């Protein structure tokens, strides 16, 4: 359906997955992502697919492991606490080099936390909440349209690199409605899944989907092979948006829905003669290091301000990328509270006024 439709974020994510050829969804109820499994339960059977509500998020991610190992396009979705439960499974999926999409509609934490939007799962997403040296490609949409596009790209990236991909949304993105288009896409040239377990007839090597390497030398070789893949992803798949950064006095680093609030701040500031630029990472991993180094290097830039719906997580990556060139500050709301434009602007003024 190429025409524009008004859709709730969660449902648009489900539709995008179906249009990307995802036939299998294994999930579990948790607010604020419930519309995704509900949508998949309704639609997948109509496209020859299969929806299973698992007994837990742990079971769901392991069902994803099985379906992915069997060669299918498969996904799961959840919110923060559920994503924590899936971490072991995700580590296995990365270790066994299986493609899949995991969607986290983030809510306030820690613990039971709340059900309002947040970005306090950044560390878990980008540093890996599971065990071992592994990485997930982490995609952070800021609009429902971008979520649709990144879901479709996410499945291609997963298949391209045989790796789990995480779509990091938040409760706002999941619950709000926006017009979306499900555009025709130029499909990527993807490798064939000759490795999948489909029943061994002797026409290929026996498929063993596995992450166990009891011999340490072999496990190290396996890790080095995975690292080479991650290095390639870092070269090929970095995405970001640089907005109004030319000659800016302050660069704000922000992603997802929060970055849209920052764009309002940029307009407000412009009216007061203050030039603010935005760097919006779209891939949280691989993190867009080069653009920070380049943009922040401008002589006009006095400082960098990271703005997040958390108490400061991406700010660490920003500091690493800025590498001391300029001071890096942080402003955030968390727990489900959303930063207000005037509060952000006040931070910028304090930075420029030297009192921050």
């Amino acid at each position, binding site marked *: 359906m190429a025409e524009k439709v008004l859709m709730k974020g969660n449902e648009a994510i489900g539709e995008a997955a179906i249009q990307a050829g995802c036939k299998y969804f*294994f999930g579990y109820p948790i607010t604020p992502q419930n519309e995704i499994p509900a949508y998949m339960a309704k639609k997948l059977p109509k496209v020859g697919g299969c929806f299973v509500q698992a*007994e837990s998020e*742990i079971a769901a991610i392991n069902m994803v*492991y099985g379906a992915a190992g069997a060669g299918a396009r498969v996904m799961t979705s959840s919110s923060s606490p559920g994503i924590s439960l899936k971490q072991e499974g995700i580590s296995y999926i990365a270790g066994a080099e299986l493609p899949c999409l995991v969607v986290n509609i983030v809510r306030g934490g820690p613990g039971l936390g709340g059900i309002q939007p947040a970005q306090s799962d950044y560390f878990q997403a980008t540093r890996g909440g599971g065990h071992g040296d592994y990485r997930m490609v982490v995609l952070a949409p800021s609009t429902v349209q971008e979520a649709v596009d990144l879901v479709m790209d996410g499945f291609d990236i997963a298949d391209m690199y045989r790796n789990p991909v995480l779509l990091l949304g938040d409760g706002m993105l999941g619950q709000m409605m926006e017009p979306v288009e499900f555009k025709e896409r130029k499909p990527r040239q993807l490798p064939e899944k000759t490795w999948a*377990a*489909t029943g061994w007839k002797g026409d290929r090597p026996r498929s063993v989907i596995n992450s166990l390497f*009891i011999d340490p030398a072999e496990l190290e070789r396996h890790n080095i092979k995975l690292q080479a893949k991650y290095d390639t992803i870092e070269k090929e798949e970095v995405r970001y948006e640089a907005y109004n950064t030319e000659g800016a006095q302050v660069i704000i680093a922000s992603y997802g829905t929060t970055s849209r609030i920052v764009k309002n701040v940029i307009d407000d500031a412009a009216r007061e003669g203050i030039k603010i630029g935005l760097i919006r990472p779209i891939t949280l991993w691989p993190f867009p290091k080069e653009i920070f180094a380049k943009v922040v290097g401008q002589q006009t830039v006095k400082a960098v301000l990271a703005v997040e719906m958390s108490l400061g997580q991406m700010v660490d990556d920003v500091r690493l990328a800025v590498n001391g060139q300029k001071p890096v500050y942080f402003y955030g709301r968390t727990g489900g509270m959303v930063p207000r434009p005037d509060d952000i602007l006040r931070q910028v003024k304090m930075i420029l006024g030297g009192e921050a």
Partner: protein
Amino acid sequence: MVKVFEKPKALTDKPFHYCPGCTHGIIHRLVAEAIDELDIQQKTIGVAPVGCAVFAYDYFNCDMMEAAHGRAPAVATGIKRVHPDKVVFTYQGDGDLASIGAAEIVHAATRGEKITTIFVNNAIYGMTGGQMAPTTLVGQVTATSPYGRQPEIAGYPIRISEMLSTIEGAAYIARVSVHDIKHLMQAKKAIKKAFEIQIKGKGFSIVEVLSTCPTNWGLTPIEALNWLKENMIPYYPLGVKKDIDGGGE
């Protein structure tokens, strides 16, 4: 002269790593014999557990997957939903299935997943060095029940087959043993039947196989078979617990 008994095709040539006299090896062979006799090797996909049988993917000569501890039934669910025409089995120990994986096995049965589970009950955690399992008998000494399992602090052994037999989605449940020739032949029949139930799409099937752990029981392989007969069978009565084809208690 013709060969009347040899290694089944559904087993690879890799020698088992199991301890001398461990009956995992017998059970592996019975599963492989069933796969050969049903001629399903090319359409079978197995899921290995975490435990002594963690290397089962090296032994079963078909496509295999290694599951996280306790999660084999969920992994198998994912496989079967993608390939409903394939035969999918899990091979799990009692630590894997009855402890960390209890929810997974209960819900695979509840959903009537058309998979077959081979559940090896040896009343202990073997791979990790003999800890108490949910199936450890009252009074049984293990690394984590050094004074013998005491119900008031460690509860009672769990009878998985009886528990699962209350679940609608379960089509065939049997508990068998491999402690002597007669019983291991019956075990093979039950394993084959479980696969047939799956092939006929009748629902979830599981065979609980009482098995030995000479090393961690601190017994010789022969003594272990006797210990199983004297101690495990009274608490874990053998027989068909549920059979959608009729039969069963």
